């Protein structure tokens, strides 16, 4: 029997189970978009049939990183920009665990950009939610990699001279196999997208637009938003890389013109990293973590296997 009976447990799940008794009320600022991510995520959990004890939520540092405090599950609130490498190893160690990583736009696209690129290319089977408020929230409102050009802040008093990064295009070019954008103002779409992302067998990237009324006061609240899947104005095939790429480019550009386009942009079924790695024989079939709890486990001895080469 597994040492991890929470994994795959089949029972009714109530989204309230994901509200921690210790900090039931989040302390984000009034009107913060982060509340919506929390809500959507809680809402998605019963849909994907996972209980708090089988979910590992890894976050970075930022207002976004506080998600861990308000979402009941196993959690690892790591350091700024490093949620992905921590998360993906946990998945390799115990593929039965549902691994979700989350962080801010500074956390994920700024300091953590390299891990984003490499985790996407490796296509680890996990979900990555980026709270994109186009600002550094927790450090009090500096320009972030997604802040629009010309954006004024304390550290860019005359306005940013930098074009913002294109998170969706980067995810695609890097190799993410599921790419979507949703917005705090769009709670049902958000919950659906998160559920899809979690169920996707590969690296699912969700760029979640979360308004920051405190530091991005004059920024749009991401309304009105358009769901590209619902709108007749957009026609493209989410499984076609080229069409997806063009759509993403448009979506990214339009955001800075005030048009909020959301939805699923790309979905592809290439094997996840775990599958690839098992196929090469470089990863055990049984979850590695199980072995440490198996009293009958046979541990290989270096002396038996290797010393002969040296004699």
């Amino acid at each position, binding site marked *: 029997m597994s040492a991890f009976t929470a994994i795959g447990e089949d029972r009714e799940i109530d989204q309230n189970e994901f509200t921690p008794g210790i900090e039931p009320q989040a302390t984000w600022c009034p009107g913060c978009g982060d509340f919506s991510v929390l809500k959507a995520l809680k809402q998605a959990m019963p849909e994907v049939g996972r209980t708090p004890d089988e979910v590992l939520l890894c976050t970075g540092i930022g207002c976004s990183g506080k998600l861990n405090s308000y979402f009941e599950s196993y959690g690892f609130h790591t350091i700024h920009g490093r949620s992905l490498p921590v998360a993906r190893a946990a998945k390799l160690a115990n593929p039965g665990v549902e691994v979700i990583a989350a962080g801010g736009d500074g956390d994920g696209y700024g300091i953590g950009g390299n891990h984003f690129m490499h985790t996407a290319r490796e296509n680890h089977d996990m979900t990555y939610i980026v709270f994109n408020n186009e600002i550094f929230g927790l450090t009090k409102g500096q320009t972030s990699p997604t802040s629009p050009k010309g954006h004024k802040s304390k550290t860019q008093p005359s306005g940013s001279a930098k074009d913002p990064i294109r998170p969706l295009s980067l995810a695609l070019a890097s190799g993410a196999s599921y790419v979507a954008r949703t917005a705090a103002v769009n709670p049902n779409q958000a919950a659906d997208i998160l559920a899809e992302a979690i169920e996707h067998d590969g690296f699912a990237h969700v760029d979640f637009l979360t308004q920051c009324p405190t530091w991005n006061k004059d920024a749009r609240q991401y309304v009105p938003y358009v769901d590209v899947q619902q709108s007749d104005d957009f026609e493209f095939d989410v499984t076609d890389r080229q069409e997806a790429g063009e759509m993403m480019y448009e979506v990214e550009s339009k955001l800075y013109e005030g048009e909020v386009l959301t939805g699923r942009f790309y979905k592809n079924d290439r094997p996840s990293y775990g599958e690839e790695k098992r196929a090469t024989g470089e990863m055990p079939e049984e979850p590695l973590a199980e072995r440490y709890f198996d009293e009958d486990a046979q541990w290989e001895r*270096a002396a038996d296997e290797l010393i002969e080469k040296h004699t």
Partner: protein
Amino acid sequence: MTDQELIWRIAGGSGDGIDSTSRNFAKALMRSGLDVFTHRHYPSRIRGGHTYVEVRAASEEVRSRGDGYNVLLALGDSFARNPQEDAYYGKEELKPLTENFDDLREGGVIIYDEGLIDEEQAEEVGLHEKAEENGWYVYPVNLRAIAKEHGREVMRNNAGIGVMSTLLDFDTSYYEEIIGEVFNEEIAEANRTVIRDGAGTAEEFDEHPDLQMPTAEEHDEEQALVSGSDAIAYGSLDAGCRFISGYPMTPWTDVFTIMSQNLPKFGGISEQVEDEIAAASLALGASHAGVKAMSGSSGGGFALMSEPLGLAEMTETPVVLVEAMRAGPSTGMPTKPEQADLEHVLYTSQGDSTRVVLAPGNHEECYEQIRTAFEIAYDYQIPTVLIYDQKLQGELRNINVSFFDREPDGDPGSVLTEDEIEEAAHHNSGKFQRFNYDRDKEVSPRTVPGQKGGRYLATGNEHNESGHISEDPTNRVLQMDSRLGKFEYIREELDEKGNQTHYGPDEAQYGIMTWGSHQDTVFEAVDRLNEAGHSVKALGVSDMMPYPAEEVTAFLESVEECLVVEMNATGQFRGLTQKELGRFGPKLSSLLKYNGNPFEPAEIVEGFETSINGEELGDTTMKYVPAAGD
């Protein structure tokens, strides 16, 4: 056969097969019953440049690099000529000869490859003059021609072995046996022919050297030829480590490579990732999920692990990191040994350090202490760093095979099972209390994701008993005291392991202290010093943090003065000792070396004598720093 020791150097360019030939040679000597020890010298370059490997062999125990050497097989750098690429550079190919003049002992032997090293050029650099001065025996042989005649040019190394077999009365049977094991029959046969032809050629020389092979007696039990990296990797595997994440960096790459090649066979996982920040972070992620995990690096790569290391401290996530030192600062001299990362490893990462740091002194200690590192890390939930250097990493040495005959350890440490979780303390909301105030040996057992009822939050922020962020001053002090309080219990545990090594007469007038890879070289020097009438004992310290204060105190109290030998420019271990045991400051002086070459035993002898005589060091490759005056 004689009771002399052999110190044999094979020199050529990187890529000339120096490494594999010397390994085979050392193994052959080991099988013949000799004790062996190797030392490598090479540039940070893939092809060409001057490289050598030294094999020291004797009938009694050999545990260090020796003083100088007595046989040179100079192959010449075959990559020094490369006309298509504009890379035809001066006298480079002579370097394997010229660069080795200095250390060759009187009466030593030089065999060089005439096929690459022009006799006239050798004359120009004064070979014969020097040979006469020093009584060297010089044998130019066209090894390249011999090799080409029977096979490929790379076989010229073996032509050289053949020449040696005649000149030094070296029985090539073990060597040929090994050739048979590593090559297919056709190539092996060609190599054997090359050896024989080399041997034949040498018979034409009239004069044979005085030096002969040391007498070999069969070892009491089977021997294995291992490097420090082998010992660390095998110790890790036996410690139950089944996850490694890394990024290549010399000299750490060796451990990473050995682990990567073997982990799949051992049912584990190896991950080569985008950088060292990721590497350390992955190890934390795997450990958090219940797996015994390690990572590591050298110099700049370890510097990048600074922040994740602090995260492990704060979250009490067990992890083992290894740090393989090379000469710094910065990129420094990537293939040269140094022991200058000690303070970096002890203190890097913000906040008060909460890590264990062990520095093994030789191959056996590498194996044992990496196992200890895993035990401590997983039992006490504390990051543990094993620090070693480029020297120890690459030195080959024979060890009793029975030494490795140990039980593997699959115990995940202080982790609860689901049954135990049910019994354990929970917050009334159902959250597991991961970070209790009330602890046994200051350890609060953990759970791992997927276990029912075990959910908790690990965070790099200060946190309360359930892991939630807290800035409460009282909680802060309780949590800090728990994390730091572990040291007391770890110290006890380490004392039981006895990681410090004492050597020499109990009642000695003087002491020598050292740490890490020079331990056995120091011990050899101690033997010589006592033989020469001095009264000296030595202590090799492995526990860097927590520091073995009592044991070192006892040692220092028992001697009049103590010389601290280490391979860096600022005396970092001496500084640590003064920090911990300041009052001994006036007793401590330093012998330092930081030119990229490890100490030879004779240098330590010289340094010691200088120190007690209050003289100046003649040798400018070392530095003597006396005790601070009172």
